């Protein structure tokens, strides 16, 4: 409301009136939960006397501020009520301001849902923003009873709603309030006071529960604190984020997340499988088929790379685990269930984080609003490094320029150019796909070669070295081919950066999938027929793969980042310092995690290796990043990328690993003479055996029953699948419905915007059609100003506008109240216009009347007769209204207020011989306003009562008009 600065043709006051409307809309929803609804008449009586208070001109701090320099005018004389103490917007005052009704309204049950609550808070937030554009509560210009009351009322409602929540929800709700800490603290205190008052009424039970909740809250804070202390790499993360931005940080967050998976997996495996074995069986290596631990097996060093030999006799691999029941601890079951539970937990946590990510990042997010998005959402507030900031700036400039030229370019793209682009795309896809196939075939043949040439019977050092061939080739492929893919990407022209990244991702995923599937084919089909303890063999090859992957990752960061940095800075400056390729690096992580998941069955301690690997990798990548790389040029959509990465990790990779493990456990025959499942047809039959044993135990029949009838029955799974399909279908339909709803709501916003602009146009037309009158009015007002310009400054008109706006607001509220009691508000856009026009007409009428008053006023400087006339006219209207609106006590209050005001005026006239031009102007504006209101009311009587549309909009129009008028005055004043 302080923004009268650009005062051009278009009224800036419109800003606020529009916000007023929005505000109303937001809070009108919540009025249904408002306990005040039941006692509106009394409340409105109160409100009406407030009207009078406004009529009598603001007081307190506002007066001091805006009426500065004119103390000699006895403003207070108009008021017959004693001057109330100046009020401030400090929250401390709202406790004292509790209405008496407030207490007896508390018994009314409060139907509050959380959705409703957030709407209300938003409404409040918006309102606050509109009332205090600069969030400045100390600004005394707004110290106005009405606003203050309203705020207080809002706060009461808020308190009510908060009080209805449980302690925990309440705390959360308070935290989410868009208010300053002071206000929040005040609300919190208020609530505590209330609850303590309440608990005094009840038994000590409530007291107890209160204490328990308090205690649990404290505990929660301590746990949160402790968790924060344990958080890994906080400082490192901050510095990376500060230097390279959120998108690069995604990689490190992902790495940390995977590390947590592996730590959990290691703890579980080590705790439930390895420790029991180590404790009860000191020599795990007897499990090898020969009962002698080979004397010649010593640690030679090559084992670290190959994972064979000495490692075969440790708890590293499947083969070393026992199938016995160790002092009541069934190793078979422990092994089976540990891995099964781990895999299930992994899956659940993946699905959970995926869904959270999808929810937070809105799957539907589209790139439609590119410029606005680039302007308002891309700046990374966490970046603190000067160089990075500079670079981001440059990048943003380049991107904006690009997007400007792109839009111009898009249309000029000819068919032949398009064809060329498609041709290049096709070629690249073909090339990359065939490369992936070629690599898979290569791996296949290398494996074939290894299996054919190695001789298990006499295991030589050369044979051992030969086993390194496959992991070497696989890791090399993983290192080199993605670089090729990145190269292809440079030749292609994608319309958006996003498409480019997706293409790159899909190709890389395809490559990794094809290689892994060849390897899995070998492990599942060929290896089981070969060796005596094939699970351990598979475990060894996984060990080698994991290790080589690690070595090549290090090499990769050497070649990929260090070398290209050297080349870019020293040799070919054109290339420049490399960027950190988040997508490629994350895919590498995903790949290595997949290996670990597959290996969990064959080598339960593989996660330990993975932990080490990730720990080293974190520091390595951090160092490499800070020394060799520059912040990314494109501010990619980091959050979206993260969602995609998690999805990729889940969908092809985790699901693939899970199915491999499940296939192994269900369908493959375990080795005859090693491992926990020896001499069983498959791993799952360990459970069969256990259930078979349970049959003999009394009291556990139900477990057997459940197992036979539920777990083993196809019907059960069939039904479950059916139900899930039905649920999916229903949810899908619901989603479609919601999408439609969103579309319609958006359309509605657009329509309302059009309505608004149409109405504004009409308004301006109407005003133009009455130019003479307006100028006359202006002239008069100008002369009035001249009278008083030794006293009044521009502040005065400002205050008029204030008062009018307040009135409009109050009126709006009043109407809304009335309708919320009267009937269900029907959202109707159609009926908007005609009542609106009526309102405008009424307004015009009022204006004319107003003008009629002005000349008279000129004749009689004391203005009493004009006033008296106006009063009489008003009284008539009021009487009419009294007859019709007896249902609402409000009108009587209004009359009272009127009388009070009249008396005030009379006394004023009696007392003051000197003219009060300013106050007279004020009064007249008020009256005109009031009259317009009356007219309006009369018209509503004819209008259908359950239509909130006209009321809201007419009041809006009135407010606008009032504002415009004030603006005119203001302009004249200068």
């Amino acid at each position, binding site marked *: 409301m302080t*923004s009268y600065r650009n005062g051009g043709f278009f009224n800036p006051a419109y800003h606020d009136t*529009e916000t007023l409307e929005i505000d109303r809309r937001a809070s009108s929803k919540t009025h249904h939960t408002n306990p005040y609804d039941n006692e509106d008449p009394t409340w409105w009586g109160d409100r009406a006397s407030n009207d009078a208070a406004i009529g009598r001109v603001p007081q307190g701090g506002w007066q001091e501020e805006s009426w500065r320099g004119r103390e000699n005018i006895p403003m207070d004389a108009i008021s017959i009520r004693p001057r109330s103490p100046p009020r401030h917007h400090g929250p401390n005052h709202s406790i004292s301001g509790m209405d008496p009704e407030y207490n007896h309204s508390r018994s009314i049950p409060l139907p509050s849902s959380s959705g409703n609550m957030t709407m209300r*808070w*938003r409404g409040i*937030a*918006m309102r606050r*923003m*509109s009332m205090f*554009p*600069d*969030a*400045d*509560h*100390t600004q005394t210009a707004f110290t106005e009873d009405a606003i203050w009351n309203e705020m207080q009322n809002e706060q009461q409602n808020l308190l009510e709603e908060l009080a209805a929540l449980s302690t925990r929800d309440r705390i959360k709700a*308070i*935290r989410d309030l868009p208010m*300053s*800490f*002071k206000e*929040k*603290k005040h609300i*919190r205190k208020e609530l505590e006071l209330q609850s303590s008052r309440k608990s005094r009424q009840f038994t000590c039970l409530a007291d107890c529960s209160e204490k328990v909740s308090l205690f649990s809250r404290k505990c929660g*804070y301590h746990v949160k*604190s402790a968790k*924060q*202390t344990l958080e890994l790499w906080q400082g490192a*993360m901050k510095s990376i984020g500060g230097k390279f931005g959120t998108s690069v940080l995604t990689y490190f967050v992902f790495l940390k997340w995977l590390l947590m998976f592996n730590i959990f997996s290691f703890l579980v495996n080590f705790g439930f499988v390895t420790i029991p074995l180590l404790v009860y069986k000191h020599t795990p290596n007897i499990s090898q088929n020969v009962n002698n631990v080979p004397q010649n097996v010593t640690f030679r060093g090559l084992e670290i790379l190959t994972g064979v030999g000495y490692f075969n006799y440790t708890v590293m691999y499947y083969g070393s685990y026992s199938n016995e029941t160790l002092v009541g601890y069934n190793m078979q079951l422990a092994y089976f269930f540990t891995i099964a539970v781990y895999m299930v937990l992994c899956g659940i946590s993946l699905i959970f984080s995926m869904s959270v990510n999808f929810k*937070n*990042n*809105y799957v*539907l*997010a*589209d*790139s439609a*609003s*590119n410029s*606005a998005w680039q*302007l*308002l*959402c891309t*700046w990374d*507030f*966490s*970046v603190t490094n*000067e160089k990075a*900031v500079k670079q981001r700036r440059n990048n*943003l*400039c380049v991107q*904006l*320029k690009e997007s*400007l030229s792109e839009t111009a370019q898009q249309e000029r793209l000819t068919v032949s150019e398009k064809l060329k682009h498609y041709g290049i795309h096709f070629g690249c896809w073909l090339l990359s796909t065939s490369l992936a196939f070629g690599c898979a075939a290569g791996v296949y043949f290398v494996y074939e070669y290894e299996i054919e040439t190695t001789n298990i019977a006499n295991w030589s050092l050369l044979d051992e070295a030969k086993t390194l061939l496959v992991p070497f080739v696989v890791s090399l492929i993983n290192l080199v081919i993605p670089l090729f893919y990145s190269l292809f990407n440079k030749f292609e022209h994608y319309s958006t950066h996003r498409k480019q990244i997706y293409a790159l991702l899909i190709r890389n995923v395809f490559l990794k999938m094809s290689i892994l599937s060849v390897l899995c084919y070998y492990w599942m089909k060929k290896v089981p027929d070969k060796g005596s303890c094939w699970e351990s063999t598979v475990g060894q090859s996984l060990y080698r793969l994991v290790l080589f992957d690690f070595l090549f990752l290090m090499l990769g960061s050497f070649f990929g980042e260090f070398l290209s940095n050297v080349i870019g800075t020293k040799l070919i400056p054109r290339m420049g310092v490399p960027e950190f390729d988040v997508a490629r690096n994350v895919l590498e992580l995903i790949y290595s995690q997949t290996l670990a998941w597959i290996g969990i069955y064959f080598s339960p301690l593989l996660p330990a290796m993975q932990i080490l690997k990730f720990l080293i990798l974190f520091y390595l990548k951090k160092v490499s990043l800070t020394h060799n790389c520059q912040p990314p040029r494109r501010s990619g*959509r*980091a*959050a*979206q990328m993260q969602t995609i990465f998690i999805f990729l990790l889940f969908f092809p990779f985790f699901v693939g690993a899970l199915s491999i493990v499940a296939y192994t456990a269900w369908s493959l025959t375990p080795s005859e003479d090693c491992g926990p499942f020896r001499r069983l047809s498959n791993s799952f039959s360990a459970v069969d055996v256990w259930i078979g044993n349970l049959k003999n135990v009394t009291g556990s029949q139900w477990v057997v029953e459940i197992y036979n009838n539920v777990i083993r029955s196809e019907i059960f799974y069939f039904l479950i699948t059916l139900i899930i399909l039905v649920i999916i279908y229903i949810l899908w339909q619901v989603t479609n419905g919601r999408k439609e709803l969103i579309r319609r709501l*958006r359309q509605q916003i657009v329509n*309302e*915007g*059009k309505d608004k*602009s149409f109405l504004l146009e009409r308004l301006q037309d109407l005003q133009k059609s009455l130019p003479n009158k307006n100028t006359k009015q202006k002239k008069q007002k100008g002369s009035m100003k001249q009278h008083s310009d030794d006293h009044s400054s521009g502040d005065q008109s400002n205050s008029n506008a204030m008062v009018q706006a307040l009135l409009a607001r109050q009126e709006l509220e009043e109407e809304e109240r009335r309708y919320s009691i009267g009937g269900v508000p029907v959202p109707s856009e159609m009926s908007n216009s005609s009542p609106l026009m009526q309102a405008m007409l009424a307004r015009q009428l009022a204006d004319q009347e107003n003008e009629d008053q002005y000349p008279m006023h000129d004749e009689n400087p004391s203005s009493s007769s004009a006033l008296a006339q106006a009063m009489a006219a008003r009284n008539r209207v009021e009487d009419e209204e009294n007859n019709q609106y007896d249902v609402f006590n409000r009108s009587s209050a209004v009359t009272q207020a009127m009388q009070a005001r009249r008396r005030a005026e009379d006394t004023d006239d009696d007392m003051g011989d000197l003219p009060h031009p300013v106050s007279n102007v004020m009064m007249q504006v008020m009256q005109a306003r009031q009259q317009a209101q009356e007219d309006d009311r009369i018209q509503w009587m004819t209008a259908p009562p359950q239509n909130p549309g006209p009321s809201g909009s007419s009041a809006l129009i009135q407010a606008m008009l009032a504002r415009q008028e004030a603006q005119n005055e203001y302009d004249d004043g200068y």
Partner: protein
Amino acid sequence: MGNKQTTFTEEQLEAYQDCTFFTRKEILRLHTRYRELAPHLVPLDYTNNPDIKVPMTLIITMPELKENPFRERIVETFSEDGQGNLSFNDFIDMFSALCEASPRELKTIYAFKIYDFNRDNFICKEDLEKTLNKLTKGELTPEEVTLVCDKAIEEADLDGDNKLSFADFENMISKAPDFLSNFHIRI
């Protein structure tokens, strides 16, 4: 914490924890950071809620804010007097709203306030131009700035009044999943 001298009472800390997204440790750390800005001004003992404000010129020297193009606006938005002088409560408020745990709705409201330079409750073209100039430090020509701003408004303005209201802004934010992670200052 109570080994040397108490900065806050138990009650104060609890209030801070209830009303912000921070833990006790973070609140104490924030206090240390706040005190570092003006050691002669800010006492160690905050148990009696001293009414002390650190001026904006000092606040924006924090490394977290120093390079931020919107640093003045951020500080102004959160200061109670609107001039950029921050009391400790304002300081906590600022980082609480910008921390990771703060929900989207809250961040949206504050982001809107920050981008609304002239505080008229709309992000109008003027605001957008200011934003753009802050982001690019005047490296675009005035014509380009106008073009970009026009385009931005055209894209994000739903109701066709040529400026972005809060609803427009919110709608745009909902399409930009990065906003949450970008509108975030690690402390």
